[in-house]
């Protein structure tokens, strides 16, 4: 039963890897005495859910050893990947705009634990780890960041434009807040086609003040669309603190007529519980707002050192008190699901995986030239012309 539960909640990527890794470790190290991989565990999340016009979900969260080790592995890999991206940016392998997710990993893994790949996700430009969560590979992200052919968008999109159609990841969008109405459209499609799925429309606390968000919210509520308006509140919209830009930073309550829940977004289990609850609610009742109280360690983008509008003490304080990976590490150790050495082994394996992906991404070729003018339209319109450096006009035929 418990295995089925875990399977249903976790996507195939997560499931396969987690179980395989955990089983392998169990075999090697014999630490699985305390609990089998899929034995049901109940953990009480410490921070109560705050709610608006709805009863809160239980703080007692069901989980398993496999899931917790999966959280640890995935979040650690995400962290390594973002740190690698930071280094690659500084050494100019990655150019342009790049927004890192480290600190916010619990949102991604907790959310995915409650959803399956038939549920849709759409987010803004801080999307590298969302892509991993949706079953993407580190190579796809890294190659996309470098504009190389093995990238998930064939190197055409770059940092802000990760997509995975097969797993209903609608990207990776560059304009603040513009993805939310799209997400409502996806939710409409799900409802119209009577699919048992929801759409997670993610946005930041900065985007929470965009007008189109409220337009979309009204439509979603009016038509009871299965959309989870998910505000990843990392407390700074670019360089502006939330209190400077939002009259009410209680983002979970800003839907007025739409109920909302505020979640400790640094706690993967709390996030999972909220999304599990939210999915059930949205399928029956329509939209729900979920505010994830989280934090980004890096600046807004690579040109922002991230320390001019907040103190270094604040950042290090959050790292010490609320880090999502350390929280899961402590939980795993306290439940004696694995030893510190086991977790070190997972870390080492993640590092190796990221390093290999970075090498592969570096040696991935540039997209072929035809991709410059391919995919603009479906088919090529008549008289579509393009010219090269010699400015000789060539009618492109695709």
């Amino acid at each position, binding site marked *: 039963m418990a295995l089925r539960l875990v399977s249903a909640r976790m996507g195939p990527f997560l499931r396969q890897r987690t179980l395989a890794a955990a089983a392998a470790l169990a075999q090697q190290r014999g630490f699985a005495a305390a609990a089998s991989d899929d034995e049901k565990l109940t953990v009480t999340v410490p921070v109560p859910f705050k709610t608006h016009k709805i009863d809160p979900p239980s703080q007692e969260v069901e989980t398993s050893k496999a899931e917790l080790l999966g959280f640890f592995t995935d979040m650690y890999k995400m962290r390594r990947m973002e740190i690698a991206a930071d280094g690659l940016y500084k050494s100019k392998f990655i*150019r*342009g*705009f790049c927004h890192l997710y480290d600190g916010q990993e619990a949102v991604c893994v907790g959310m995915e634990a409650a959803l399956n790949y038939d549920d849709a996700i759409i987010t803004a430009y801080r999307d590298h780890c969302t892509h991993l969560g949706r079953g993407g590979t580190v190579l796809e992200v890294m190659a996309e960041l470098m*504009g190389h052919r093995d990238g998930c968008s064939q*190197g*055409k*999109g*770059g*940092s*802000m*434009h990760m997509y995975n159609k097969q797993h209903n990841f609608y990207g990776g969008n*560059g*304009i*603040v*807040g*513009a993805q939310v109405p799209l997400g409502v459209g996806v939710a409409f499609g799900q409802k119209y086609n009577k699919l048992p799925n929801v759409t997670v429309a993610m946005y930041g606390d*900065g*985007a929470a*003040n*965009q*007008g*189109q968000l409220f337009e979309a919210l009204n439509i979603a509520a009016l038509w009871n669309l299965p959309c989870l308006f998910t505000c990843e509140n990392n407390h700074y*919209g*670019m*360089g*502006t603190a939330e209190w*400077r*830009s*939002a009259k009410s930073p209680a983002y979970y309550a800003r839907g007025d007529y739409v109920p909302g829940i505020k979640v400790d977004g640094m706690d993967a289990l709390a996030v999972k519980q909220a999304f599990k609850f939210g999915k059930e609610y949205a399928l029956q009742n329509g939209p729900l707002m979920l505010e994830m109280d989280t934090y980004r360690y890096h600046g807004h983008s690579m*040109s*922002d050192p991230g320390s*001019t*509008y907040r103190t270094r003490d604040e950042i290090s304080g959050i790292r010490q008190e609320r880090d999502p990976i350390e929280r899961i590490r402590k939980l795993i150790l306290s439940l004696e699901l694995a030893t510190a050495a086991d977790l070190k082994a997972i870390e080492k394996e993640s590092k190796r995986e990221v390093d290999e992906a970075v090498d592969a991404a570096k040696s991935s070729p*540039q*997209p072929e*030239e035809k*991709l*410059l*003018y391919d995919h*603009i339209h479906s088919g090529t319109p008549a008289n*579509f*012309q*393009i*010219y*090269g*450096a*010699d*400015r000789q006009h060539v009618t492109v035929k695709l």
Partner: protein
Amino acid sequence: MQRGTAALLRCARFLGELQPRRISSLETARCFSGAAMQAQPSAPEGYDGTAELKRMNLFTAVNDALHIALDTDPNSYIFGEDVSFGGVFRCTTGLAERFGRHRVFNTPLCEQGIIGFGIGLAAMGSRAIAEIQFADYIFPAFDQIVNEAAKCRYRSGNQFDCGGLTIRTPYGAVGHGGHYHSQSPEAFFTHVPGLKVVVPRSPSKAKGLLLASIRDRNPTVFFEPKGLYRMAVEEVPIGDYETELGRAEVLREGSDVTVVGWGAQMLVLERACDAVEKEGVSCELIDLQTLLPWDVDTVAASVSKTGRLVISHEAPITSGFGAEIAAKIAERSFLKLEAPVARVCGLDTPFPLVFEPFYLPTESKVADAIMHTVSF
């Protein structure tokens, strides 16, 4: 250079040395809005030759202009995303400290709200200087600009206007900006009667044109070439001066072909002109400076002299502002034209990430177009 003051006008890593301007009869005859123009020295307008010059890059020149704007009009305000911290391109550095956070303030991330707010503030008689962080982000505010700002005066029978509104926004390629940090959306706004659209090419022009835009009694969209913020450095006059809107500037005189552009593209055009001049082609290079209303007379007069026209901009070629120039010149100078008007522009693709060098109207593409045009 002939003029002592002009000798100091150098764009160190930008346009090379500006050519001294000989005042031609064509230029003195040029007029816009019926007002006779005075002959212009090569130094910025309002620069009397005695003011101190200071070496500045483009963002510093913008910053300088904003200091002067706020200093000279207590009823002027600057707002936008992160501007009170200096903005992502440092253009608003020091303003909040100097003039107070009640005059230089951050807004939430809501472009439509920023511009709507600015229109209201301007309608109350203030000078509202709004920043949209990237020109690519201006589209959520498109309705406010096109339907509200531009028509405010007209539809109220001149009872109300938002002429105090100036929208500053960085545009253009930076080498790696990708789809949403590289675009040049100026042509959209040139399609809107009631607006003015201004694009400076250099620090001294940025300062003079920005001050003119802020003080102009029409809502103005001011596109700043973000690729030049740090790269373009020149001697900029200290103090208050305005560069007149609606006037093009002839950067170098020539006899074989007229080359027209604006903003950061002027750097590319300057290099292309240098390249073809080695082949014996004499180019007359014109910086339009203001796209709406644009200085038809200066361009038409030049084409009447050269018989050939090459236009270049970074935005995609189809329906770019070059199309308007080509059509107008075909109408005005049809019998003088000796070759088809050539346009060297961005490709009709979204602004690409890794393919940016293929997309851009580079020096070699422009030089090639010039050679084709003169040998037509």
